[in-house]
């Protein structure tokens, strides 16, 4: 749900987000990319530290990554469903200057929950170029929705990724249940076939849960994925795991390690207004060598 929201309302400059992440055919790691942002446990509430992580990959490794949120207020509830907010630096608050990092938002328990109508205007010199209304429909009282952006520092330039984060106003208390850790979810990524230049391998991924409606997201260093960069659940097991599959045609010119990445955004987060989508991923390196 959250990724779908993002895809629907992006108006940021082109280089702020890898919008092609939403394109099923743009799955090659041929440039710096932030493929996923994860909070674990998948909740943002004062008193319950969550670990912020990002999956940033490209032809070279990132030198580092940082994270920030935008638009969160300690006096009124906000819904800021656009990364355009980051164009107004006065509204940006750092979360971490290195990732992974733990984060706990400020205590927002004193916020009023009644409907208000404040609008933040952008800084385009007059007419607002973006807005953030309060009390957007669909979100319950007691939650502010803000974008969290990750900036990955690659040698060739930055890459960006983001996540809409529901910040719960009421602080975490000892009796509250901690959402299950994302890291504990089982997943396996295996392959069989001919890992050689010009060869074809079948890739199988199993996950302890269900992905959201967008399915499983695949990325590779090179080659052609015959089932594209998005695959559906092909098998639902009795034990609650789901399975999917892809087929990779390795280029004739490729030899050496070839990375295969699967990113999953689970549905569990999307069924609650107070949980972040529980994103996870798995990376497999194929040893592509001449026979």
């Amino acid at each position, binding site marked *: 749900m959250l990724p779908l929201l993002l895809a629907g309302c992006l108006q940021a400059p082109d280089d702020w987000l890898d919008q092609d992440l939403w*394109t*099923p*055919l743009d799955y090659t790691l041929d440039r710096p990319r932030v493929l996923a942002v994860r909070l674990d446990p998948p909740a943002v509430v004062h008193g319950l530290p969550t670990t912020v992580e990002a999956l940033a990959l490209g032809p070279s490794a990132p030198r580092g990554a940082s994270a920030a949120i935008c638009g969160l207020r300690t006096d009124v509830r906000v819904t800021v469903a656009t990364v355009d907010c980051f164009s107004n630096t006065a509204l940006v608050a750092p979360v971490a200057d290195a990732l992974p990092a733990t984060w706990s938002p400020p205590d927002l328990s004193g916020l009023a929950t009644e409907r208000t109508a404040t609008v933040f205007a952008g800084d385009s010199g007059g007419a607002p170029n973006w807005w953030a209304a309060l009390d957007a429909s669909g979100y319950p009282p007691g939650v502010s929705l803000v974008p969290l952006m990750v900036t990955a520092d690659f040698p060739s330039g930055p890459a960006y990724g983001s996540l809409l984060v529901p910040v719960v106003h009421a602080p975490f208390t000892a009796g509250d249940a901690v959402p299950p850790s994302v890291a504990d979810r089982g997943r396996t990524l295996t392959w069989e076939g001919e890992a050689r230049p010009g060869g074809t391998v079948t890739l199988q991924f199993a996950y302890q849960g269900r992905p959201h409606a967008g*399915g499983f997201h695949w990325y590779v260093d090179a080659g*052609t994925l*015959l*089932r*594209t*960069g*998005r*695959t*559906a659940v*092909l*098998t639902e097991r009795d034990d609650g795991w789901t399975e999917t599959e892809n087929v990779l045609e390795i280029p004739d010119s490729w030899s050496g390690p070839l990375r295969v990445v699967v990113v999953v955004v689970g549905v569990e987060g999307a069924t609650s207004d107070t949980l972040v989508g529980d994103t996870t991923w798995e990376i497999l390196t194929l040893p592509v060598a001449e026979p």
Partner: protein
Amino acid sequence: MRVAVAVLALGCADPFLNDPPRLVSVNGVELVRRRGELRLPARAAPLRVTPGERLWVTLELADPDGDPVDVWWPRAPVGWVFEPDAIEGYWDVPSDAAVGPLELILRDQHPENPRTVGYDVPLWAD
């Protein structure tokens, strides 16, 4: 002047850029324009799904520039067989198949500026 004449002669095709490919028909049923969008007419229902049976799918494609067109089906269901360079494939429909629209992406093989278009292809339960 010669360039301008060439553009006119080619009609919609732009010799300097690349026009996207197009889905013309599915199983012989042509897409029609409704509210500005090209869609398959519901009454014709070219893709009728019967659980446990094989559904054949034949596409007619067009590319204004004459480029070859690849066919991609993101999130295809289990049993779906359709090679990217083919215009015909099939679906061995599981007995418990859920019927919903399929995503179809066409991408031409223009060497400089490949173009991509997407369609929702509806399925009808028998």
